[in-house]
Structure formats: structure tokens, C-alpha cells
């Protein structure tokens, strides 16, 4: 396999597109402004020297201060690659332009990232949850996501159980009422991991 030199890719992009701000991190290219992503991808896909026609993987990571999407591009025509592109967006209002119009292969993977990380890919033709069900709240792959505590009942659960003729213990009822009064949900404690 022909491994691409990140610095060379960087200079080539800067020469062709001019105003794009790039930074190389660990043999990958960080595109400083998320809106530049389609421009860079289009250049790499169509330029005769690169022809990166195959978008292998689109994935996201949560780095607490920001959310990141990583793209691994290969060329099926020239059998080279990968060129890794990354885009960072703030946790509040994370928006990245979608690559579906360039690469159909991004369709399900962007939906997957939207579902689990809450990154909005602008211009995606059908941006819905794909793994979780409709009406699910929260983004499970974010590091601050707390799971529901399946042992504790909430007032809606108590209501449903009683309507269906199940006798709910008084203690559970009292706990549910207390949670409701505090305006809280029944969430599981985060497991403390030893990082040592």
C-alpha cells in the first residue's frame, strides 16, 4: 500500500484551494473551519493526483471540550490511502456539512453519528435516528451521558403499572413522587473506573 505523506497533501490542498486553514495532527489533517470540509473532500476526490474516491469510514469522538468527526479516505482507482481528515465542532450546536452528495457511503454513517453523538450534518437528505428509536432523548456515546436506572420507577412507570393492575410497593411510589417533585429522572450512577 502506498502511504500518503500528510505534509505533501497539506501543501497540495493549500496550493489548490488557497484560503483553507489546515493543521496536521498525528498523520491526519485538521480542517479548522468545518465549512471548508466539502471543498477539501471534493478536491481530494476529483484531483487527478489523488482520486480518493472511496470514503471508508466516518466516525465521531467526544473529547469533552469539543466533538470531532474523522474521515478515512482511500482511492480504489489508485489503490492508495488513507488520507485522514478531521473536523472539530463545539459541543453546543455541533454542525458539520454533510458529505452525502459527494460520497453516498456517508449516508448511514452520518446518521449513526447523529444518533449517538448528536452531531448535525447539514444537507443530509434523511437525518434521522438509526439505532435508537424515535423519541429517544440524549446521545448515548457522549461521555457525559447517564443511563436510565432500570431498578427505580418513575411516576410515569407507576401510573402505567397501576393502570394495568399491577400492585406497586408504597416505597417505590414514594420514591417516584419524590423524584417528580425534584424534577429529576431516575438515572444510574456513573460507574467509577480506576484509571490507574
Amino acid at each position: 500500500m502506498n502511504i500518503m505523506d500528510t505534509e505533501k497533501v497539506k501543501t497540495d490542498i493549500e496550493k489548490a484551494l488557497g484560503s483553507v486553514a489546515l493543521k496536521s495532527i498525528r498523520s491526519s489533517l485538521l480542517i479548522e473551519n468545518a465549512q471548508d470540509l466539502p471543498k477539501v473532500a471534493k478536491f481530494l476526490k476529483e484531483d487527478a493526483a489523488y482520486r480518493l474516491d472511496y470514503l471508508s469510514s466516518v466516525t465521531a469522538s467526544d473529547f469533552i471540550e469539543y466533538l470531532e468527526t474523522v474521515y478515512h479516505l482511500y482511492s480504489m482507482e489508485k489503490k492508495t490511502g488513507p488520507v485522514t481528515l478531521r473536523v472539530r465542532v463545539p459541543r453546543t450546536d455541533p454542525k458539520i456539512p454533510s458529505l452525502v452528495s459527494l460520497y453516498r457511503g456517508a449516508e448511514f454513517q452520518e446518521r449513526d453519528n447523529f444518533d449517538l453523538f448528536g452531531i448535525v450534518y447539514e444537507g443530509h437528505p434523511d437525518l434521522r435516528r438509526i439505532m435508537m428509536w424515535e423519541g429517544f432523548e440524549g446521545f448515548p456515546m457522549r461521555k457525559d451521558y447517564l443511563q436510565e436506572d432500570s431498578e427505580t420507577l418513575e411516576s410515569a412507570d407507576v401510573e402505567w403499572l397501576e393502570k394495568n393492575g399491577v400492585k406497586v410497593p408504597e416505597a417505590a411510589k414514594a420514591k417516584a413522587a419524590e423524584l417528580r417533585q425534584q424534577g429529576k429522572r431516575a438515572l444510574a450512577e456513573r460507574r467509577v473506573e480506576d484509571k490507574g
Partner: protein
Amino acid sequence: MNKIFEAKDINLAGINSSLLEVNIGPQHPSTHGVFRMNAVLDGEVIVSLKPVMGYLHRNHEQIAENMSYAASMPYTDRLDYFNSMSNNLGYALSVEKLAGLEVPERAEYIRVIMAELTRLINHIAVIGFLLNDLGAFFTPVLYAFREREKILDIFEEISGSRMMCNYLRFGGVKRDLSPAILERIRGVVTAFPRFLEEFETLLTKNEILCMRCQNVGVLSPELAVNASITGPLLRASGVNYDIRKVDGYSVYPRFQFKVPLGPKGDVYDRYYVRILEMRESLKILDQALSTIPAGEIMSKKMIPFLKSPRNFKPPVGEAYARVEAPKGELGFYVVSDGTPQPWRYHVRAPSFINLTILEDMCLGQKVADAIIILGSVDIVLGEVDR
């Protein structure tokens, strides 16, 4: 009394001929698991088809982020439960890339042997199931499973489990292969072509199979590349891209084998490319078995971590490694923050991404054809839903 029924006798006034929406699945034997196709039909012809998935979603990635690197190895078996050895290989390669580990030569050979045996199992089973979808109910699949069982017996003997093998380790493999086992693998490899001949005599020129499969669900090479399709599905469309050749990971560059391509990209080509790939796998197995060297099976650096996996802390960084799994490109993206647990662990699942173009292949086809098109894509829901 003898009046013949004529078409003009039917009164069509007041009959509403609107489109019909049908949910195929999630509990339907032809969807190969809990998978749903939300199809809109005009008569019997499909005008829209939306895949709906996630019934088996267990957030595999988050489970792996909450445990040590080595502890995720058995979980990768459960992704594509037909091919646990290939999943192990993909994950092991990504962590080895992250930690910069060398693998002893004998272990590399054992890995290749296991990966190719897995490919035989997967392709033979998927052809059996494709015939099931075509209506040849369970006879071909039982022929296929008879052969598959012989390989699973070998897996059981070396790893202790038929399907959930958990056999590979970072830097090597769990146990060495004894000469007796190598002899048994050799036996399977010598006997397999005869079975393939038998299978092909029944199927390849079978008139019903040809009529049902040819020119059905055609996928153009341009769309296949653009939609990130990989594996036999891509090669049936005539695109020469095999990661064993392109990346040359493990010891694959040492073996002679061809990459079979399909001329048209229909369901029949996908069937036949798989048959040919099995023949190439047999060639690789034959070469690997006759040239396997003696020696270590585990990198010396990794032996202390076998008993204390939480002491294994790869340096800060990231790695993306991919293998040619039987279903396509299986990639693992791992980010380390220097702790015993990965900060980010992502699986690039081939059968999930191969479903992107399911609608494009099914449009304008009959419902019965949509079932075999799905069968020819070859999905496993453990991997699609992760």
C-alpha cells in the same frame, strides 16, 4: 352455465389502486434476523424501500470503552457471529498498530489460516441461505452446514468454542496448533474442493437459479464505489479491490491468489464470486499449511499482560486498521488516552454500510426479488446493529 369469464365483466369502478405499504420484518425468516424493510409497493413492484435497523443495538462501542483493551476481544466475536476469527483479527491489528507490536511469524500464519477457514464457513453458509431465500427450502443449507461443521469442530478443538472463538491475542494467538490439528485442517482443505464440485453441479448451471438470479439487483461499479460498498458485493460489480492485496496486512503478500471479479453485478455474480473466492481461499490455505514455520506464537512484550490485562496501556494516539472480512472491509478505529481503557473504539461494520444501497438495488424489482437481493448482500444483524 358454460359462459366463459371475460375481463370486461369485471367492474373496475370504485376500486382504489393506491400504493401499498408493507413492513417486511422485523420477525421474518427472510430478513436474516431482526431487520425490517419498510417497502412501498405498486402491485408487486417496489417503488420505495427503507431499511429499519437497531433492534439488536447494544452500544457495543460504549461497552468496549468501559473495559480494558483485552476484555473487548470476546465481544468482537459477537459482532459478526459467523466470522469471529476475522473480527478478532481486525481488532488485534488495530491495537497492535496503536501499541507498535510485532507478531511472530508462526502466529501470523496461524492467523491467516484461521481467517481463510472463516471465509469458507461464511461463504458456504451465505450461499446456503441465499438458496433458502430462493425457495429451495433447507436442503442446500444442510449440505453447506455439513461442511461448515467440520471446520467448526477444528475451531472447537483449538479455541474451546465452535463459534465464539476468542482465539487471537494482541501480539499473537492464544494456543499453538499441534501437528495433529494441522493434519486435520489439511484433511478439510483436501476434501473441500470435492464438496464444492458437488455443490456447483447442483447449482451453478441450475436453470431455476439462473432465471431467478441473473439480471436481478444489478449494482453499477460507479455506485458501488461511491457508496463505500466492499467485499464480494463490490467485486461482483467488477471493481478490483481486495484489502488482502491492497494493504498486504499480515503475511498475505507471500501467497499466490487471484481476486475473482463479476462481469455484471447481479445476484448471480455475487453467488459465483463467492464460489470462486472459496477456491482462492483453499489455495491460500494450501500454501500456508505447507510453509508454516516453527517458532513462537506470542510476542514476548505481550506475555506479561496476558495475566494482568489492565496493565496494558498503549501510548496516546490513534489507529485505524482494516481487514478483508468475508463480508467486506472490517475496520477498527481505536483512540488511546494512555489509560487501560480506550477513549474511543469504533467498528466500521461492512454489512451495515453495504445496506446503504439496498433501496437502489430493489427499486423496480418484485417483492420476491427484494428478498434474494437482501440475501445476496449478506448481512448479520449482530454487526449491523452493533
